Structures are given as structure tokens and as C-alpha cells.
């Protein structure tokens, strides 16, 4: 019996998504398409009559910008927004800034898929010589934050929106739906599509997650994300 509703949203396209580069902790803003994705998502949620009580985001601008655009479209700018680094996109280490398709050409699609989607394989770590090291670390993790900060809000009966990133959302899904370490590799979240979870009083999913909106559009969006890992010859 569903008692709570929780929404997850993966932010839309940033400049580097367009270029198929690992963005991770580099703080990019949304591209024009990403802005549109967020706006459309907000419009959909408004049409379906959803009302949020609280929103959680990472401290990366693209997830915050997404949340703001969604709230604007819904006329719910007044809803509290809470930001934490613990919802940040996964740290891709030395891969940050590199192009996924080129990586697939160089290392093979399987290796890249492993880095992107496996549960516990870490990419090569970033070091101080990396071109983006300064940018990330001069700027001013997940489950403790979930338990200490988000869960109490849900249990108070508040409708929560988490506006975050592909991997932080996948990590949450794994926890809520009890997905195995092997099966999580097969889970891809499309961008800009709200994911509705209905939870029982123990915060476990009572039914499969629902991706809201036009289903054909959603399938195309999922494929788009998966295809980023396909090898393309470098130009």
C-alpha cells in the first residue's frame, strides 16, 4: 500500500553532455536544450497536479538550475531547496573532461561500460596535474545524507523532489528498489524525465518506478544515454 511519493530527476543536457565528455564534478551549467528539458519536465509535473514540499539537490549548478526551472514552471518557487555535495554526480577521477566515445575507441566499449555502469569499479583517480583538478578542488556521500536528512522529510509526509545526477540517482534507486550489484549496471536513467517512486512506510518501493510523460520519447532518451558509450572513431 503506497504511503509516500518520491520524485527523482536527472538533470538535462549540459555543454559537455553534448560533447559526450565526462563532466562529473566540473561545475557546468545547462545547455539551451538542458534548460528546455527542465522546463518541459516542470510543465508535465504541473499538468499532472503534483505539489512539492521540499526539494534536494547537489551543489553542482546544473542540478540546481534544473530544480529552479522545474519549480518556476510549476509556480512553486517558494518551496524550500536544500543542497548537498553528497548528491553530486559521481567523481570520475582522471576520466573527467575526456570524451566517452573516444575512450571507447581507445579502451574498448566493455571497459568504458564497466567504468560508467558497474557498482564498485573506480576509474583512475584524478591527480594534481589533471587539467580540471584546480577547478574542482578550489571550489568552495550519499546514504548518510539520505538517512539523516531526506528520510525524516519523507516520514513527515512531505512530497520530495530530488534533482540530481545520473549516478547519484542510480545509487538511490539501487537502495530503494534493492537492485543487485550486477543488475544496477543495466539501469540507465534518461535526462529531464521525472521518476516517480511510491514507497511503503518502510520506504521500500511498492511498485516499479514510473517514468512520467510520453513513453516513446522516454525510450529514445534512454537509448541516447546508452549510446554515449558506443565507440566512435576520433576525428
Amino acid at each position: 500500500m503506497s504511503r509516500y511519493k518520491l520524485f527523482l530527476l536527472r538533470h538535462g543536457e549540459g555543454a559537455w553532455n553534448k560533447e559526450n565528455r565526462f563532466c562529473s564534478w566540473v561545475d557546468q551549467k545547462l545547455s539551451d536544450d538542458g534548460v528546455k528539458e527542465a522546463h518541459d519536465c516542470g510543465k508535465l509535473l504541473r499538468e499532472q497536479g503534483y505539489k512539492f514540499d521540499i526539494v534536494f539537490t547537489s551543489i553542482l549548478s546544473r542540478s540546481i538550475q534544473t530544480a529552479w526551472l522545474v519549480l518556476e514552471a510549476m509556480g512553486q518557487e517558494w518551496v524550500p531547496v536544500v543542497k548537498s555535495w553528497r548528491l553530486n554526480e559521481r567523481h570520475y577521477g582522471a576520466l573527467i573532461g575526456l570524451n566517452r566515445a573516444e575512450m571507447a575507441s581507445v579502451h574498448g566499449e566493455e571497459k568504458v561500460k564497466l567504468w560508467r555502469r558497474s557498482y564498485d569499479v573506480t576509474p583512475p583517480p584524478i591527480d594534481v596535474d589533471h587539467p580540471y583538478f584546480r577547478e574542482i578542488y578550489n571550489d568552495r556521500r550519499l546514504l548518510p545524507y539520505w538517512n539523516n536528512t531526506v528520510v525524516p522529510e519523507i516520514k513527515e509526509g512531505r512530497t520530495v523532489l530530488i534533482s540530481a545526477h545520473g549516478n547519484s540517482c542510480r545509487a538511490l534507486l539501487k537502495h530503494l528498489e534493492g537492485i543487485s550489484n550486477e543488475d544496477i549496471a543495466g539501469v540507465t536513467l534518461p535526462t529531464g524525465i521525472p521518476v516517480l517512486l511510491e514507497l511503503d512506510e518502510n520506504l521500500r518501493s511498492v511498485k516499479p518506478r514510473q517514468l512520467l510523460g510520453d513513453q516513446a520519447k522516454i525510450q529514445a532518451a534512454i537509448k541516447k544515454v546508452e549510446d554515449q558509450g558506443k565507440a566512435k572513431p576520433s576525428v
Partner: protein
Amino acid sequence: MAAYKLVLIRHGESCWNQENRFCGWFDADLSKTGEQEAKRGGQALKDAGYEFDVCYTSVLKRAIRTLWFVLDSIDQMWVPVHRSWRLNERHYGGLTGLNKAETAAKHGEAQVKIWRRSFDIPPPSMDEEHDFYQSISKDRRYGDLTEDQLPSCESLKDTIARALPYWNEEIVPQIKEGKRVLIAAHGNSLRGIVKHLEGMSEEAIMELNLPTGIPIVYELDKNLKPLGPMQFLGDEETVKKAMEAVAAQGKAKK
């Protein structure tokens, strides 16, 4: 020597400002001009290299969106933002939605003058029959307010009385911890803070109209007393105009 710096910004033109209607707690959006004002204010803060640790705003979108434009301009979207009804614009009660001409026609010029000149005489209440009663008084965002707290109208005195507790209990402790604070709010809620900071009289605060879309900076000593008058940030032309407009207000009596 300044112990602290505080920045205030009053939101710019709303769609209702354009129509010259009493807005108050009606959740009007920024007009295109108002959006430009906010971006310009953000640019001024960016040019001056300001960094913030925490931001405060009301629960009305014209202030929140102004803050969002500013945070976007200065690349500090990640800074925590706290929203409170206590920083809302003054509640104009039964006058909400009326334009200048309608108000004069309905209540007479003399009564309007009294309301404009008075510190503590509120406008008529917004009753259940009012066009905006449902959309304002029954809005979900005010669900936690007690009956005593939820206004049906406010004088400037009332507005200040409900804004100052938030300033004292929430904002001041953060300033004293060394957090750099930005407040994006409305003409009358900001008047409350300015009156308090500068120890202004009721007559003086009623004469003061803060410029819109321009960051207002106070340098404060360790007791939160301003070390000098408020400063405006922006290009030379904008700052000059704002200073002159404020100076002229004390003189003109309409």
C-alpha cells in the same frame, strides 16, 4: 574597520508594477524589465567580486527569482537559500489588486493620502469576498502560520514587526558567525531592516524608497551598527542616479 558586510537587494519591476496595482502578497512574477534589473544587479556583484555564504528571501517569486538571477550571475547557485514569509512584501489587504485610480475612486483621495502618510494605520482587511482571498490566504505556503500570524492587511509598522524577529533570530546569528549574507526581498520588508540598522525614525523610513535591482551594501561594526550610509553597486551612471533619487526623496513632499 568593518567587522561585517551585508548586502540587500530589492526586486525589480513586477507585472503588476507595470499595471500600477497594489501587489503585496499577490505572487506576481517579474516583468521582462524586472528580470533585466536582477541580471544587472547580479553583474554588479560579479564585477565587484562578492562571495556569499547564505542567502535569505521571501516566499514570493519576484524576490526568489531575483535572487536566482543574481546567484546565477555570480556563479554561486550552490549557496544555501532560506525562504520566509516574514520577508514578504507588506500585505495591502483589501487594496490588493486595485490600481491607483480604482483605489482613489473607491476610497477617496483623502483616505488614500492618510494610508500613504501613515506608519501605523493599516488598509482595509482582505475579507473572504475578496478576489484574491483564496489564492493568497489559503495558499499552501502559509499552511504553517497560526491564525495570529497570517495577516489580512498590514500597516508598515505591522510589516516591520513581523520581519524583525526573523532578522534577529535567524539572520543576525549567521552574520555574527562570520557568514556573508545576501538578502533579496521587497521594499517594505527591507525598510524594516534598514530602519533597525540605522535607527531611523518612523517619519524618516516612510520617506525612504530603496532603489530596485541595485545591490545595497552595508559595512557593519561588531555590534552590527553601520559604519556609514548604504552604498550602491553598479556602473557609475546607475549608482549616481540611485543616490540622487534617494537624496531627492527626503525633499519632495507630494
